[in-house]
């Protein structure tokens, strides 16, 4: 048992900490960016369990617990135990954080739709890695594809800066009474967690306002105060239409809450995507570090006289279907580079646009392979050649 310290910090409005406070540059890893975000997030409790490449981030959160930034912190028995404990903490009305990745995500999987169904505003960082056998601990984003239909909101960070900002802002978005859903902030393992970059952070003596569980759309498990001595009672105790209709309506409401998040995401994240060269005929749509590689490929293409656009998706749930439809309206080719074998992002884009034969689900690497810029450059050249053939034939 360590002596409980408390760090003195001033509570400020979210807008102050997100947009107005003076920021200083720190040369830190993605894991350290997690620590810096949690320092300022007024988190009550964190529960950890090690899994590469996430382990260091929650270890660092443990360090700041010892310094007095959190009220409680412990290591769970495994990821399912951790995510269940996190659910209990959130139901009890505290702001809670955890992180996992790869096999940890899959071991805990039952809890993610449970969090969403119970309307728990948990924020969880996921550091993506391969999950298949034979084992790889290396980067692979296949788990994002698995997570898309859990009912959680899904953000995808490209950089440590994104990771810092998204985690901090997620608490405020997740806790809005009309949203009140868990948010998964995903980042590509190693590429983001284990590399250093300049990250701009506000002062560490300020923090977000506390979570107010009495604004929750579901009763907080406050055992001292009626009327809230009730759990999310299951209703399918009888095989009848009414029970099933209630369950159906409940699921719809979880998805509706995701739709309501759009307004808040636009306000705090500045939109669902970031774009470059919107008027180009060829567009790359990417998320995470695939967007970093795409940016480099765009610079190289420009040197060769080919103009290429970029849409970096920051948010995958709710999916920015309208924004993508508008962006690709007059595009001749849409290149989607991905770090997974299934191509879940290409699939998502194909499902929301007209004439989806324009979507090129490539390049695709997986199992821990890197994505050399040349792979994207080759796709750009192929598409440009095809366009030239159309033009002159």
């Amino acid at each position, binding site marked *: 048992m360590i002596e409980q310290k408390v760090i003195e910090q001033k509570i400020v409005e979210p807008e102050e900490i997100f947009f107005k406070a003076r920021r200083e540059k720190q040369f830190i890893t993605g894991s350290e960016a997690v620590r810096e975000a949690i320092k300022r997030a007024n988190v009550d409790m964190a529960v950890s369990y090690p899994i590469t490449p996430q382990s260091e981030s929650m270890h660092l959160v443990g360090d700041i617990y010892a310094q007095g930034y959190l009220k409680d912190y412990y290591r769970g028995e495994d990821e399912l135990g951790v995510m269940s404990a996190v659910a209990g903490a959130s139901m009890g009305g505290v702001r809670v954080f955890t992180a996992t990745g790869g096999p940890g995500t899959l071991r805990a999987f039952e809890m993610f739709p449970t969090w969403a169904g119970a309307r728990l505003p948990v924020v969880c960082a996921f550091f993506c890695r391969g999950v298949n056998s034979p084992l790889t601990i290396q980067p692979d984003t296949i788990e994002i594809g698995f997570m898309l239909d859990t009912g959680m909101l899904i953000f995808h960070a490209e950089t440590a800066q994104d990771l810092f900002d998204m985690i901090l802002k997620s608490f405020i978005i997740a806790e809005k009474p009309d949203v009140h859903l868990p948010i998964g902030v995903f980042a590509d393992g190693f590429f983001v967690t284990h590399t250093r970059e300049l990250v701009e952070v506000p002062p560490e003596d300020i923090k977000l306002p506390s979570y107010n569980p009495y604004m929750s*759309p*579901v009763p907080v498990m406050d055992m001292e105060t*009626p009327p809230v001595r009730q759990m999310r009672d299951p209703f399918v105790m009888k095989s009848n239409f009414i029970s099933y*209709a209630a369950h159906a309506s409940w699921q719809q409401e979880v998805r509706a809450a995701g739709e309501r998040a759009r307004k808040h995401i636009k306000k705090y994240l500045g939109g669902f995507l970031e774009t470059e060269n919107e008027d180009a005929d060829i567009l790359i749509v990417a998320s995470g570090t695939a967007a970093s590689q795409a940016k480099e490929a765009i610079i190289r293409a420009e040197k060769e006289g080919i103009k290429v656009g970029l849409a970096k998706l920051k948010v995958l749930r709710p999916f920015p279907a309208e924004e993508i439809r508008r962006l690709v309206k007059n595009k001749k080719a849409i290149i989607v580079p991905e770090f997974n074998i299934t191509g879940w992002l290409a699939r998502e884009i194909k499902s929301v646009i007209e004439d989806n034969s324009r979507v090129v689900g490539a390049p695709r690497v997986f199992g821990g392979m890197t994505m050399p810029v040349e792979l994207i450059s080759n796709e750009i050249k192929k598409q440009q050649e095809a366009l030239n053939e159309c033009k002159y034939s």
Partner: protein
Amino acid sequence: MQKVDYPVLAGPEGYLSPSAASMGVVLPDEGEALVEGRIVPEEEAMEKIAEKLLSAKNPFFFPGPLILWAWNEKAVEKAKAVKEMTEVVPAKIIPMPDYRPKYPTINPREEINPNHPNLTIWHNKIDVCVFIGVHCHYANLALKIVRGGTNCYTIALCGEYGHEDAMITLRDVHTEKVRQLTEVIKRAKAERKGRR
């Protein structure tokens, strides 16, 4: 999200009606309200609520746990203000004391439950109802089921951001706004009396 002009009207809409949010209906900002899926100024929505309640054959209020239980001073004050509003209309009251599904069966004369609100509405032949003091998730749960299976016109007076699944919703409804709405109803009632 499918962007369509989706009017949120009294049902019965169907076997499994969609959530209004999934059909592109967006919650109002401060000072605004929703009437049948359209964002309007709050004052306009209050007039519409008064009109609906005063022209109803059998209006009912469904107060939920947030104002049924004296869990803080504000809840007590709000409950008193709501009671006063029901007397002005006049409307009857059926409480929603908690959210646990009632097995083997609910007594629809005595209470309403968000998991099967249609049973209470059918039994009492309610044509206009007001949800107030119900936690947002459970209000939306009930409002969708009511729209799907009954012809009842729903009004949701929300202490937070409002409810797209109601035909009319006000947001930020605390004691003062309850009293403000009561005054609107009183005035509308007097005008109706003058026209007779």
